């Protein structure tokens, strides 16, 4: 009997210990899971892995990447929103966290999540997209494209990675800013979209600087426009939407870390501290350099401001697009 009582007391003591250790000031005391809502091998996955590895060194706790692909990121984003809000399940996301629910609304579906359910923790990269035409295209500048589209609306075609995706949206923004209409041909991914330009099936597409740079250097494609506010180191000659006066067409393929809005503020602050140290980790910087992804780190509040402005542009573009066809 006495043994049982001792055991019970010991048990309670251990349980009490467990309760105290899971308090925010000791975060993290166990492995942290990072949901990547895309399959391995994409931009989000490749950004998340070095971040997680650096956090592992900062926290001295395992950081686990869990790829939960599906529905343009929707499946993984929902999973991160419904996980226990203790800060041990976090989410890496890109602009689809804004565009997926917004396109659901336009298409008359009940959105599977709302972006208000997530708090931004940090942004790591924010690459603009580069608009390209085939190397032997008659279009030498973006103005040529706009002039041709104005002369004959719908005569200039582009391939996208899919409806409401990260190529469709900036093209709609650029067309809107220039007051013209382009012909949209949706493909099933950025690779097939680029292949369509090289095969001369459509006239233009967009892609990340690091992906397109070798094709541009070989002369296979020609860059005409950068959707960012500043020029990129890889392609310093390509004019930005600001240079050309189309600043409403500003668009970035960014990757950020989010948490459920239900996670206690102190825990989120802990994560932000950890991330601030992780982005200074030399191995992290070196790995992103290797992939030619410039680090565009922003801490929570700055990222929040950036994200709100970005979301407004994306949501407006999706409303303008309306239902495709």
């Amino acid at each position, binding site marked *: 009997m006495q043994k049982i009582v001792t055991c019970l007391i010991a048990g309670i003591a251990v349980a009490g210990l467990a309760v105290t250790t899971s308090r925010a000031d000791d975060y993290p005391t166990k492995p942290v899971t990072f949901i990547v809502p895309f*399959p*391995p*091998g*994409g931009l989000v996955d*490749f950004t998340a*892995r070095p971040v997680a590895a650096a956090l592992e060194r900062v926290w001295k706790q395992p950081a686990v*990447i*869990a*790829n*939960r*692909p*599906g*529905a*343009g990121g*929707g*499946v993984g984003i*929902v999973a991160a929103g419904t996980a226990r809000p203790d800060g041990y399940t976090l989410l890496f996301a890109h602009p689809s966290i804004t565009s997926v629910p917004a*396109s659901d609304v336009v*298409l008359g*579906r*009940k959105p*599977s999540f709302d972006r208000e359910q997530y708090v931004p923790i940090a942004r790591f990269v924010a690459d603009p997209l580069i608009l390209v035409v085939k190397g032997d295209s008659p279009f030498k500048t973006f103005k040529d494209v706009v002039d041709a589209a104005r002369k004959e609306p*719908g005569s200039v*075609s582009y391939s996208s990675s*899919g*409806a*409401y995706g990260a190529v469709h949206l900036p093209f709609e923004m650029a067309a809107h800013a220039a007051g013209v209409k382009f*012909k*949209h*041909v*949706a*493909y*099933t*991914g*950025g*690779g*097939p979209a*680029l*292949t*369509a330009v*090289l*095969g*001369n*099936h*459509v006239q233009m597409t967009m892609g990340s600087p*690091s*992906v397109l*740079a*070798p*094709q541009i*250097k*070989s002369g*296979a494609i020609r860059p005409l426009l950068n959707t960012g506010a500043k020029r990129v180191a890889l392609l310093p000659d390509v004019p930005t939407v600001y240079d050309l006066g189309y600043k409403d067409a500003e668009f970035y393929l960014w990757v950020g870390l989010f948490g459920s809005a239900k996670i206690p503020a102190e825990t989120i602050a802990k994560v932000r501290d950890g991330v601030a140290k992780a982005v200074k980790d030399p191995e992290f910087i070196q790995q992103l*350099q*290797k*992939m*030619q992804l410039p680090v565009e780190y922003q801490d929570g509040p700055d990222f929040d401001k950036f994200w709100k402005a970005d979301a407004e542009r994306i949501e407006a573009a999706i409303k303008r697009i309306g*239902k*495709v*066809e």
Partner: protein
Amino acid sequence: MSAILHDLALGFSVALTPSVLIYSLVGCIVGTLVGVLPGLGPLAGISLLLPMTLGLPPTTAIVMLAGIYYGAMYGGSTTSILMRIPGESASVVTCLDGYEMARKGRAGPALAIAAIGSFVAGTISVVALSLVAPQIARYALNFGPAEYVGLLTLALLLLAQLGSGSKVRSLVMSLLGLALGMIGIDPLTGYARFTLGIPALADGLGIVPLAVGLFGISEILLSAGTRNVPKVAAPRLRDLYPSRAELSASTMPCLRGTVLGFVIGLIPGSAHIISSFISYALERKLSRTPERFGKGAVEGLAGPESANNAAAVSAFVPMLALGLPAGAIPAVMLAALMAHGISPGPRLIQEQPQLYWGFVASMYVGNLVLLLLNLPLVSLFVSVLRIPYAILYPIVTTMCVVGVYSISSSVTDLWIMFAAGIAGYFLRRANYDVAPVVLGFVLAPMFEVSLRQALTISSGSLWIFIERPIAATLLGTAFVLVLLSLWMPISRRLELRRTKAGD
């Protein structure tokens, strides 16, 4: 020519470096394991293992990934032949005659022919790739949506060739497959179709859970209903390897399959997955005894297996020659290169010759390794069949569950697999073949997307299919095939009448 020999020598000097060679071996072995595990195919295999290669030097990493890829292609045929469980869409065809051969006690020869056919096709394709890749890659880009429509129309016509029973039943099953292929978010408009509001269905049914269910699970259910357990005697060494007759019957299908597969694999996109289906239909058309197909015809195994592996190699051409991620697997490989700081582009050959030629040379080595690895394993794999059903099938079912779940950690996929298994059980008991369902399912989204892309590009004008020579040729061929199939019964009847009148 001497330039190519020189380049290849460079490649082999890289591929035969001990560290590269070891990782190539490891890749082949891991790939074979991944392929043998039911439900895990090459794409799932390399995506899951990609993060593990990030710590390796780039050439080593890419060689290992390639090893995993074609190792999985080899291994995938093993479960198809032994247990009727396809690891990916291409090995669905292997289930048809490969499994029937196994049921007739010819599992060993079936496995050996699959391995030899894959080796021959793989090697010929690598030679072709090293000789002509850069020249043809650019030309293959002309194959756009309109051409796809032509090719897929031909493929749809061949659907009826796939079943072993009546054509009407095959067509009904193809329609079922086409309908199932419509489930999910329409990539061109973003509309969710037939998803019943279930978010997990937004990307459509997965090909792997569907195929594993329809083929594998239904087979397990069917044999549970039969009492007579086939007795597989301990095979004699002579019965483990193909007879001379089997080998000579496989030679031409293997070579035809290689050429067909190589050409189809060059087409950017996912055309390579239909190469095995087309090869099967072709062999059946050419055969003097088409009624043997679906009942263990060795030609129906050798042709598609070769086509599949040839296409697997030539699918790398747009990636290697142009740096284009033209299909799902090259996209993952290119991503791996980018993670290593190599941005692949059209000048990969000039800028990274040791990587390019090392990769090509590693494919020669890998194919040989896989042949040497797989032939001795034949006897081991065949002895699996001697395990009593009561023990074997629960293990296989568990492995199916693990394999299918590991693809995207989705429980919905498991429900799809079991539902497809039960549906497959009833369909097959009612004498409906399930192979056309899978082909219809694969073709439906490809055909729909290409057709709509072609019509968007042409602003709705149908001329695009006639103006473009390749599209026009393919559609013309399809048209002639339809006319022929309409004319045949008529001509037969006319002839009958004439002979009667002659009486």
